[in-house]
């Protein structure tokens, strides 16, 4: 991996993904709030990092190792910390704010991640799996739930929304969100996935090592 990618590109992408994921426009308290990731999402983020390592999408030894210079190890540490922060922020972003949707997403997200972890997919399959998890989270929160929660423009719409809210005891509807929230979510998820694809995989075994392996066998 080139020093430019490790020292500049990856931290920039991951920190930007974290910042975009935590930006929430149109909250009840302020026009724009930056919500830091919850401790629960940090736990989920460690599962994502573990899955990246096990699948071979990330080789931590290529970021931090005793044989590397101090400056290179510092760059690697920044990449790992940024990766953890970005993963936590993105997972926090796709978790609905309240009610039953929050409960179910908080329940199934770790199950999905643990399932991915134990299935042991290769790098490409893991990245596809992460894209599906994040994409589904974005669609559920910013398309389906946002559509159910946005203020209706017509009288019929208002009646239907009120009936839906009453039928579900208010457990489904979320705070209405402006359209920009969805765009920010898509941008941060895409940035995180692109950064995950740029992480250093393990080095392929050299031909000498392969030959020695064959001789020993």
């Amino acid at each position, binding site marked *: 991996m080139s*020093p*430019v990618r490790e020292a500049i590109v990856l*931290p920039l992408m991951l920190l930007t993904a974290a*910042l975009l994921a935590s930006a929430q426009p149109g909250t009840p308290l302020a026009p724009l709030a930056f919500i*830091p990731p919850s401790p629960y999402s940090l736990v989920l983020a460690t599962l994502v990092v573990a899955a990246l390592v096990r699948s071979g999408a990330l080789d931590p030894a290529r970021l931090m190792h005793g044989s590397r210079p101090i*400056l290179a190890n510092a*760059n690697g540490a920044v990449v790992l*910390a*940024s990766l953890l922060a970005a993963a936590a922020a993105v997972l926090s972003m796709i978790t609905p704010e309240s009610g039953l949707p929050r409960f179910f997403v908080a329940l199934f997200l770790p199950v999905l991640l643990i399932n991915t972890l134990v299935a042991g997919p290769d790098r490409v399959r893991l990245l596809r799996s992460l894209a599906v998890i994040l994409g589904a989270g974005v669609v559920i929160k910013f398309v389906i739930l946002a559509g159910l929660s946005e203020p209706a423009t017509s009288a019929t719409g208002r009646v239907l929304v009120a009936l839906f809210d009453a039928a579900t005891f208010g457990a489904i509807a979320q705070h209405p969100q402006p359209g920009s929230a969805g765009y920010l979510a898509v941008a941060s998820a895409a940035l995180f996935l692109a950064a995950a694809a740029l992480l250093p995989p393990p080095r392929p075994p050299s031909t000498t090592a392969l030959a020695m392996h064959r001789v020993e066998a």
Partner: protein
Amino acid sequence: MKEAIVRGSGLVASLAYGALVLWIYTNQPQTIAQVSGGLTSMVGVYAIDQPSFDDGLRFFRGDQFPEARAAFARADRAERDARTQFYIAYACYRQGWGRLYSDDTLFKDGLAAVDRAIALAPNGRLVVDDPNLQMHSADELRAELQRGVTVEASDFNPLRVFRKRK
């Protein structure tokens, strides 16, 4: 050598960016002016717009409080100057003060402004030496604003109508 420069500059830039993200989480800026004002005040180069502040002071002394607040807000767009926030709070107090009752909305705005002033002042202590004011410290102003939004027994004292605005 070139690699060390790239790695070193990347490390500094990443740490600075990370610190900015943490600062944004902590301070929750709402406008670009608040972001730039917060960052410049962190390195000690933030300055208010002095002509706007002077306009605000002139309006304030002429009892034109909405105009004064607008000018003070223009002078301190990032809300990072304790003295300007103090005057904004004082303008809210003087406009909202009444013999029979106070304007709760203005007093709450004043409380928010004086809280910002106290938070920005070194060690939370702010004293403004202005002979036109009757309350010189942010603590006095805060207590007066707090009394205005609190319902207490003395609010029903008929002698209240003889009190004077500070």
